[in-house]
């Protein structure tokens, strides 16, 4: 099995095996979770299978023909970045699915749960290994959809539905913009293939100089930030916490939300090294980092705190990937890549802890907890490891990546110079302080202090091994990465950074590296962090006060206002657009017709009125014309139905008389008959419609209608004189053939009738079908009475 | 042309002229006479006779060729149907309360209808 096959299998096996999961579920019943775990394990093994080659600097790239017409193949690409994500996705997937065996009640719809988890995992793997932009987008949106379904897992709960909707709207919409960005990118490069762009320096140069550069970057970043809950798009993530906790751990902390980060990392070689990149990526990152860290204080739901913390931590990553200068495009790449790995582990671990706590205490409200360390000692230890890692306490992995973040911030500040030299590190430290504070809050709030008198179940204890073991595994990783940083740095972070920077990154991550400025910053962070923590409650109280006083100062407010009022806003538009009366619609049609007629009159015509018009007619025809107009006017203006219909009937007879003069006896015959019949049918209908309604026409309405009518008349007139007199058709007509062949070939003297039944008998077949249709329609009309209610 | 032919020709032209005149007069009556019933007199009688005259004239001119035969068929048909049309319309008009003109001196039909209504 070659590496490409392995990756392909790693991506598609989850889909296939999830597809048959409902069948398997019939056999395994409540143990179906282990089946899902096995699938995740399989994917993990497949990723591990290809990892060595990638670590040794070999890129995997292969494709299967999929949409050759559009130039898109199903192609996969494995480099350091992909492999790291591959490990995170499948590894955490394995952990989560195992954990779920303990967490999910057997009363739940387990097949649906695991099926969607596996679909998600497959999509995520597909996304990170995608070698072309469109394929990436496809898997990207698939993750949005599966996330939507998983958030709404408890689909009858309004809050779940709300959260699911929000996440879908934000992420899928962002995805569409990202797609547009990809298309713009493709219009610059002519290819959707990512490696082809990445490996082509000149192409990247072209992109950077292209006038659409900013547009492409902006569109792609909309996708990335919406997915990673950055900037104003953060709003969906807190509400996504309605999902079952393992889902939150998996999707909304460890993997899916990192898709945006993945995209930024992926696009890093293409867009970085420009001011726009730094301003947009790091700018959004820093703002989000601070805002989300700050907003976490107000949360009382454990998962809420974790959600804001996730947003904030992802913002770290954004910030770091955004650090760039023309000379040194990847200042923060290594730091970011390492922190990414660490965040996946400590945040997933925290979520699992949160899950355990909620599972045991039946609440997620941190204000109702406290002092659980005695009852749940194991959980407590695991939580402390993860939280302290997040807070950046040595010797845990989080400390290392935070140090690297400070280093990169210093470097970036120096590179920028001026006031940035201090501002950027200062902001980084501020972020660290906030992180420190809420990390401590988690431990303190849940496990330390006094057990509240009411609200918690009597017997609280550590859960069974099914839930502890996966959590412990993550905690172990945190400790391991902290103590032996060379393992991640050598096997994961190095290749990742290397693949982004397309140069072998020389990483030396060590626990102790002397009294560097970054260590100073860390110390400052701790000090300030502890100070901040003492003010934690009052800050939270202030936030609550502020929020209730100024509800409008919030992105959520606008989201809710937009979504809730979407219907009202649009229905105003819709009812204005669709007033409902035929008259408006007819007017619209006629106006369009007139406008369309005017276009060629203005643009093309030389003579609107052709020369040599023929006014020569027998006098009786002229009189006949007058009669016709009078009869038509009668039909139009006589106020009551019957006189109008009689007038119309008169018009019909006059028309048939005109047909006589036009040498069309067949037509005259038909017209006479049809006229009489339609008069009878008019009567049939009017019999049942006593006339009560008479339209009052205001002068303005009348003027408008007469104007439109006159314009229509004029249009028809101009068209007719041009079509019938303006040119003499220089071609032979079909009629020549009919006249010539009616008798010899079709055996009929009456050419019109021969056309009707023979030359164009097919038309007549249609025509009699129409007659039948009228009959059916009338039958339906008559028999619809009372039965449709 | 034989004598019979000439006689036929003259007769035919007379019929034509008289027929046309009658048709025209009938239509004139439509404008001039005061009420529905009187107008019906002119259209059914004069119009029909006029039309019949013209058809007869055509028959005389062309003999029993398709045109002639059809012409006389048309004439017969008008004679058959015109009175019915007149009858139906006048009946409807009267029963629907279209009154006689002021010059009218008697309405025995109206009395009957009033009696019926009162019952």
């Amino acid at each position, binding site marked *: 099995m070659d590496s490409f096959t392995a990756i392909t299998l790693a991506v598609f096996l989850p889909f296939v095996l999830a597809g048959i999961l409902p069948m398997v579920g019939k056999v395994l019943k409540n143990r179906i979770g282990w089946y899902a775990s096995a699938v995740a394990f399989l994917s993990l093994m497949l990723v591990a299978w290809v990892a060595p080659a990638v670590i040794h600097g070999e890129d995997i790239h292969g494709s299967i023909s999929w949409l050759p017409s559009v130039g898109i193949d199903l192609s996969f690409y494995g480099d350091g970045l992909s492999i790291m994500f591959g490990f995170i996705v499948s590894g955490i997937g394995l952990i989560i699915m195992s954990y779920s065996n303990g967490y999910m009640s057997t009363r739940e719809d387990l097949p649906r749960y695991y099926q969607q988890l596996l679909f998600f995992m497959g999509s995520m793997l597909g996304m990170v290994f995608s070698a072309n932009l469109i394929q990436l987008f496809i898997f990207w949106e698939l993750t949005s959809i599966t996330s939507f379904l998983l958030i709404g897992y408890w689909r009858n709960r309004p809050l779940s539905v709300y959260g699911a909707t929000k996440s879908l709207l934000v992420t899928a919409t962002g995805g569409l913009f990202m797609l547009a960005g990809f298309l713009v990118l493709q219009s610059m490069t002519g290819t959707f293939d990512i490696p082809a762009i990445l490996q082509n320096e000149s192409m990247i140069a072209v992109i950077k100089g292209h006038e659409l550069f900013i547009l492409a970057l902006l569109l792609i970043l909309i996708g990335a930030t919406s997915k990673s809950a950055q900037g104003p798009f953060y709003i969906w993530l807190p509400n996504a916490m309605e999902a079952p906790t393992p889902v939150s751990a998996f999707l909304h902390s460890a993997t899916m939300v990192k898709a945006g980060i993945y995209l930024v990392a992926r696009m890093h070689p293409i867009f970085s090294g420009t001011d726009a990149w730094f301003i947009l990526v790091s700018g959004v990152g820093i703002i989000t980092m601070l805002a989300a860290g700050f907003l976490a204080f107000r949360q009382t739901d454990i998962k809420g705190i974790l959600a804001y913390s996730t947003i904030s931590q992802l913002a770290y990553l954004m910030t770091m990937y955004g650090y760039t200068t023309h000379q040194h495009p990847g200042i923060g790449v290594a730091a970011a890549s390492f922190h990414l790995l660490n965040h996946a582990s400590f945040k997933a671990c925290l979520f699992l802890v949160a899950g355990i706590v909620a599972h045991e205490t039946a609440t997620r409200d941190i204000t109702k907890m406290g002092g659980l360390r005695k009852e749940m000692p194991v959980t407590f230890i695991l939580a402390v490891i993860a939280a302290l890692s997040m807070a950046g306490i040595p010797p845990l992995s989080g400390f290392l990546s935070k140090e690297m973040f400070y280093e990169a911030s210093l470097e970036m500040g120096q590179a920028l110079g001026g006031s940035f030299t201090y501002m950027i590190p200062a902001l980084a430290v501020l972020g660290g302080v906030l992180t420190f504070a809420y990390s401590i809050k988690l431990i303190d709030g849940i496990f330390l202090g006094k057990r509240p008198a009411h609200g918690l179940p009597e017997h609280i204890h550590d859960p069974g091994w099914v839930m502890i073991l996966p959590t412990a595994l993550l905690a172990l990783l945190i400790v391991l990465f902290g103590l032996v940083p060379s393992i991640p740095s050598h096997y994961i972070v190095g290749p990742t950074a290397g693949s982004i920077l397309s140069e072998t990154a020389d990483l030396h991550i060590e626990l102790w590296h002397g009294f560097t400025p970054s260590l100073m910053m860390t110390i400052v962070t701790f000090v300030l962090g502890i100070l901040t923590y003492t003010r934690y409650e009052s800050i939270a109280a202030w936030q609550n006060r502020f929020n209730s006083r100024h509800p409008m100062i919030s992105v959520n407010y606008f989201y809710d206002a937009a979504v809730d009022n979407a219907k009202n806003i649009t229905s105003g538009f819709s009812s204005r657009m669709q007033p409902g009366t035929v008259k408006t619609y007819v007017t619209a049609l006629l106006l369009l017709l007139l406008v369309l007629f005017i276009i060629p009159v203005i643009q093309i015509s030389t003579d609107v009125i052709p020369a040599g018009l023929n006014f020569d007619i027998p006098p*009786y025809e002229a*009189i006949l014309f007058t*009669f016709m107009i*009078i*009869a038509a006017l*009668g039909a139009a203006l006589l106020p009551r139905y*019957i*006189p109008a219909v*009689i*007038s119309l009937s*008169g018009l019909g*007879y006059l028309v*048939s008389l005109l047909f*006589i003069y036009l040498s069309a*006896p067949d037509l*005259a*015959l038909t017209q*006479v008959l049809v006229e*009489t019949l339609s*008069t009878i049918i008019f*009567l049939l209908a009017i*019999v049942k419609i006593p006339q009560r309604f008479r339209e009052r026409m205001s002068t303005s309405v009348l003027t408008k209608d007469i104007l439109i009518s006159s314009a229509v008349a004029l249009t028809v007139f101009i068209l007719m004189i041009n079509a019938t007199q303006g040119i003499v058709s220089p071609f032979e007509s079909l009629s020549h053939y009919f006249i010539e062949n009616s008798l010899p070939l079709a055996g009929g003297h009456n050419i019109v009738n021969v056309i009707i039944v023979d030359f164009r008998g097919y038309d007549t077949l249609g025509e009699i079908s129409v007659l039948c249709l009228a009959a059916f329609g009338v039958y339906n009309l008559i028999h619809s009475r009372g039965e449709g209610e | 042309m034989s004598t019979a032919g000439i006689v036929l020709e003259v007769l035919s032209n007379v019929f*034509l002229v008289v027929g*046309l005149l009658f*048709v*025209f007069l*009938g*239509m*004139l009556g*439509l*404008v001039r006479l005061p009420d*529905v019933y009187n107008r*019906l007199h002119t*259209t059914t009688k004069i*119009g029909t006779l006029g*039309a019949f005259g*013209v*058809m007869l004239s*055509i028959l005389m*001119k*062309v003999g029993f060729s*398709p*045109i002639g035969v*059809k*012409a006389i068929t*048309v004439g017969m*048909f*008008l004679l058959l*149907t015109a009175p*019915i*049309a*007149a009858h*139906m*319309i*006048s*009946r*409807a*008009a009267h*029963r*629907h309360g279209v009154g006689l003109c002021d010059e009218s001196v008697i309405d025995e039909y109206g009395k009957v209808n009033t009696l019926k209504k009162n019952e």
Partner: protein
Amino acid sequence: MISMFTLAIIFMVLAIIPCIYRIIMGPTIPDRVIALDAMTTVIVVMLGAYSFDQGSVFYMDVALVLSIIAFVGTVTIAKYLDEGVIL
């Protein structure tokens, strides 16, 4: 040269004027119906004349049909006026 029948046709066209007048001006519905019926009679005459003038039997067919069918129409309207129903 204008044939006699051409004159006839022009004369008949003039005969339509009163019919149109009544159709439009009424005053009662029966008036209009009579006028419509009368108009068909005039048209029948015109068709006859035209048929002869053109030497073509085809128009006579139209006249024949019109004379029959107009009757149907008039009777229907009359019944409607009288009884308020048709069938």
